[in-house]
């Protein structure tokens, strides 16, 4: 039994949907959070504007003259207009040029969003690595909230996440699609991209870990202090791994 025309169309439609879903799939929680934050802000603005319009209509109706049918119609159109006006503003998609100057608190989320947009154009192994980088960026994001923007660590992360990472991906994309699989000086651009992304994934993870190291130390110190104070000062500790 051969596949009917309808089945064929259904299958191709299903795979197209799957592809587009794959395309817009977020790579980390921070990008989702940023988009949601934007949506809520937009909703809030629409609600406030509608409230102002309704209040104006009520005042007009009470003091000047009753609204009547025409007035209600006008009010209705006005409300739609306000909703469209304030609800239209699209999410400001980050551009590569803006990433190095992004606010440190939003850097991880915005880089995630930018990567999500680039993801469909990358080869399959690189797409997987991009997902991994999303996980590391999520790990890094909460620590960026408290990091002093002028510290050397902040500059380092800004360079790594805001410059090095986008530059690698953009550099790959500048190569014409037909040449990306061709070997150049022993390596194809595809391989070079994968190698670079792997390095970046590791480095972003390391940065997150070294930022957390201070807090980890503080916690361990506090525990040890409690031991020293309430169990006596002579309780000698043996380092783990000492054999």
């Amino acid at each position, binding site marked *: 039994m051969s596949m009917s025309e309808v089945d064929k169309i259904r299958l191709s439609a299903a795979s197209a949907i799957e592809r587009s879903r794959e395309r817009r799939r977020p790579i980390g929680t921070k990008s989702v959070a940023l988009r949601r934050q934007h949506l809520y802000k937009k909703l809030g603005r629409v609600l406030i504007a509608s409230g102002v319009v309704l209040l104006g209509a009520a005042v007009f109706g009470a003091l000047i003259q009753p609204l009547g049918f025409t007035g209600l119609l006008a009010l209705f159109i006005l409300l739609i207009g306000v909703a469209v006006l304030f609800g239209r503003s699209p999410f400001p998609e980050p551009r590569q040029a803006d990433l190095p100057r992004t606010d440190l608190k939003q850097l991880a989320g915005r880089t995630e969003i930018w990567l999500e947009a680039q993801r469909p154009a990358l080869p399959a192994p690189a797409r997987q690595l991009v997902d991994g980088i999303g996980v590391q960026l999520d790990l890094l994001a909460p620590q960026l909230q408290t990091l002093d923007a002028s510290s050397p660590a902040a500059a380092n992360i800004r360079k790594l996440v805001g410059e090095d990472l986008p530059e690698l991906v953009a550099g790959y994309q500048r190569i014409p699609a037909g040449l990306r699989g061709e070997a150049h000086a022993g390596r194809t651009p595809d391989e070079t991209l994968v*190698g670079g992304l792997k*390095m970046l994934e*590791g480095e972003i993870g390391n940065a997150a870990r070294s930022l957390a190291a201070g807090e980890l*130390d503080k916690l*361990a*110190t*506090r*525990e*040890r*202090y409690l*031991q*020293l*104070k309430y169990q*006596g*000062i*002579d309780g000698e*500790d043996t*380092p*783990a*791994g*000492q*054999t």
Partner: protein
Amino acid sequence: MSEVTATATATDELKLTPPDPVPSVSPEKAAGLVPLSTDQKSKLGERVDGFIDDLVAQDVNSPAFGQKVDQITNMGRKEMLEAASHSNRFLDRPIRAMDRDTDIGQNLIELRTTVERLDPSANGKLLSKRGFLDKIFGGKVSNYFAQYRSAQTHIGGILTALANGKDELLMDNAAIDVERRKMWESMGKLEQMVHIAQTLDEKLEAKANELDGIDPAKAKVLRENALFYARQRSQDLLTQMAVTVQGYLALDLVKKNNVELVKGVDRASTTTVGALKTAITVAQAMTNQKLVLEQITALNTTTANIIDGTSKMLKDNTARIHEQAASSTIPMETLQRAFQNIYDTMDAIDTFKLKALDSMKTTVNTLEGEVAKSKGYIARAEGAAQAQASVGGADSPLAALEG
């Protein structure tokens, strides 16, 4: 007199031993301080064997050979940097410890001056025959004990400050313990790298000797290139190891110093509280007046909770003081003894601090010299790393075993 000497505090003499300064650790002696298991050694040996086989199999002019040699120059970079990051922190710790000592020293000096004003021996003859004027203006003894009442807030404040200082010392020691745990880990990794470098050195030399007859050109390149870098790296790693070991020992010195100081502060607080308790009892025996020192009693309770064993000791002693004060014909002497105890403790702390400061200074000086030396090696390691950023790293066969 023997029963009188057993006064307000523990009878054993307070002995604070300043730790000896940390000697300079030579690179040759640095290796082997952190033991590696035979299992680890054989695994590392296998890696080196695999690496040398790979290296010899390459054509000496190919980029692959160059990459392998780069891996030698790059080996242990991560471990060295990690170990060096500790050295920045352990250098400032002894220096800060010396500052902390002055804080506590200030409190102790203040305590001493306050206590000296209350010292019965400095208050002249308290037990002179009661004269006519005494009957009008109150006895010298009552006046003397009245001073306690005015001093109690001050003494309470100083003792609280001392307790805070002690907490800071403990916190310092806790941080040192954590730091040392991390350093021990770094030293374990460095030790592995040192082992790799030394094995590589031996085996490369053996291989070069073996190749002398078959392929003299390759043997020459192996000696001049791979072996040279392996030796240089080995030296760098050993130097870093020596500095780290020395820092590790220096931290131990700071820790011991703090522990002694904590003992001293504990004893100073206990003897002071003990003397005040004695004063309360003696006052009652001599003037039949209750000397109210609420704050001291409150403090006594808190210090007893903090300082292990103090509460039991003080309880025992209170009973004894009561007995002495009631039976002895010279209760004032009991009080004087109690004060002498405070002075003895403070003198012990003073001598200790002088000697400890010496040890600490010597240690910091040697350490500074060694760290400065190692900085040169680190700079070289960094330069090499930047030149070949893409090679080495975790993929290199010459990386330490994880865990």
